[in-house]
């Protein structure tokens, strides 16, 4: 799949919506869209989309270029959305993108819920995020393209951001992994016993794997 940084396609009850990053020049958007259409011709053929670029306005010739481009792939430009229209229960078709409602400290994407404890010998591998509603015991492992969240105790091996995402994190009610990896970074369990401290999160900061307590304050500050 093409890496799209400045456009996103979202399916809503009222049809498809194309989001354009209002922070970049039209040429950037157009180039990405061209690439995207080339690779997903079949998916979009005959579709009708509406576009949204926040408060940004485009020049007339830019809009014409857009209509022409869409037309080449038999996609109809059905109109433009106003900022107040872009909400409601919807499915993001390209999870890699950040739609406009997404703020700092939020992430989305496909997610696998594991509704039990992963015991020794179990291996879970998933492209997206993995949430375990139980423990991950020694001898069990999780490999996730995205984040890993373990509600119980993580004692096994966890590898988040396994496809290279250094922004991924591993968090657990009790973080006691045998080995913890994020993207290309590896950390081992300390050889001495550590006291239980409650929920913790591990992530890469300045190129280093860091573990810190998940405190209420921290959440408040990152969600503000």
């Amino acid at each position: 799949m093409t890496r799209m940084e400045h456009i996103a396609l979202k399916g809503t009850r009222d049809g498809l919506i194309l989001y354009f990053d209002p922070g970049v020049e039209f040429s950037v958007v157009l180039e990405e869209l061209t690439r995207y259409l080339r690779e997903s011709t079949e998916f979009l053929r005959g579709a009708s989309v509406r576009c949204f670029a926040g408060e940004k306005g485009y020049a007339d010739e830019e809009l014409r270029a857009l209509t022409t481009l869409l037309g080449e792939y038999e996609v109809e430009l059905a109109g433009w959305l106003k900022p107040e229209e872009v909400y409601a229960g919807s499915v993001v078709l390209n999870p890699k993108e950040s739609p406009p409602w997404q703020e700092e400290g939020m992430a989305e994407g496909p997610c696998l819920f594991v509704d039990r404890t992963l015991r020794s010998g179990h291996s879970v591998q998933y492209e997206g995020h993995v949430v375990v509603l139980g423990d991950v015991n020694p001898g069990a492992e999780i490999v996730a393209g995205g984040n890993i969240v373990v509600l119980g105790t993580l004692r096994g091996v966890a590898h988040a951001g396994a496809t290279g995402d250094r922004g991924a994190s591993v968090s657990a009610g009790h973080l006691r992994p045998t080995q913890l990896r994020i993207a290309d970074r590896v950390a081992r369990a300390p050889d001495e016993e550590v006291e239980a401290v409650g929920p913790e999160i591990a992530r890469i900061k300045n190129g280093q794997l860091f573990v810190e307590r998940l405190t209420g304050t921290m959440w408040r500050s990152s969600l503000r």
Partner: protein
Amino acid sequence: MGEVIVVTSGKGGVGKTTTTANLGTGLATAGQKVVLVDTDIGLRNLDVVMGLENRIVYDIVDVTSGNCRLRQALIKDKRFENLYLLPAAQTKDKTAVSPEQMKVLSEELRNDFDYAIIDCPAGIEQGFKNAVAGADRAVVVTTPEMSAVRDADRIIGLLEASELSNPRLIINRIRPLMVKHGDMMDMADILDILAIELLGVVPEDESIIVSTNKGEPAVLDRGSKAGEAYRRITRRIRGEQVALMNLDIPDGLMSKFKKLLGLH
């Protein structure tokens, strides 16, 4: 209609055979009609532990392959009228029996006995699959070592994946002095990791070795600490609430055990 209970562990040498012999004998003392089944084909030793080695004529493979009838292969215990052993074959290997055959056999045992206790071989291969195939309940034995606990965890996962959920745990060979000095894997940790119901805690006890050599299960020895633990385990299997024996271990751990036994 009787019950088929498999005794399993993953790691070898942690006390499956000892548990099978003592639990079965314990149930027989309580007047139950019991059969012990050795599924450790090629490495049979339940017969030795029971002191019945010299009476073997037919074995489990003879039964499942139709060489003889079940009744012909059952060996009556020398102490109890109501206790029998179905020995493993020594000269064949584990593939000589299939899980389907074990299901059929278990059904027959369920009809004839109050309890069938199945001694499972170590490992997670064919022998394990055979042993659990016809069982109604499972008992998982571990010792307080990380490697044994890891294997027990694996086994619990496999039991959960088959239809044998809610296995119960026996922690064997606890050495109170080592617990006190913190030299053993923290028992509380074991219970946290495995997170299943505790059936009992058996202390390390030389009388087990003596009794094994004599072919006389420790559960019959009033002076044996391990025997006392197995007497209590026997009653718990029968659904009784039984207090934890004094293990001479720290109070905090005792209360954790008690809680996991459903005692207060």
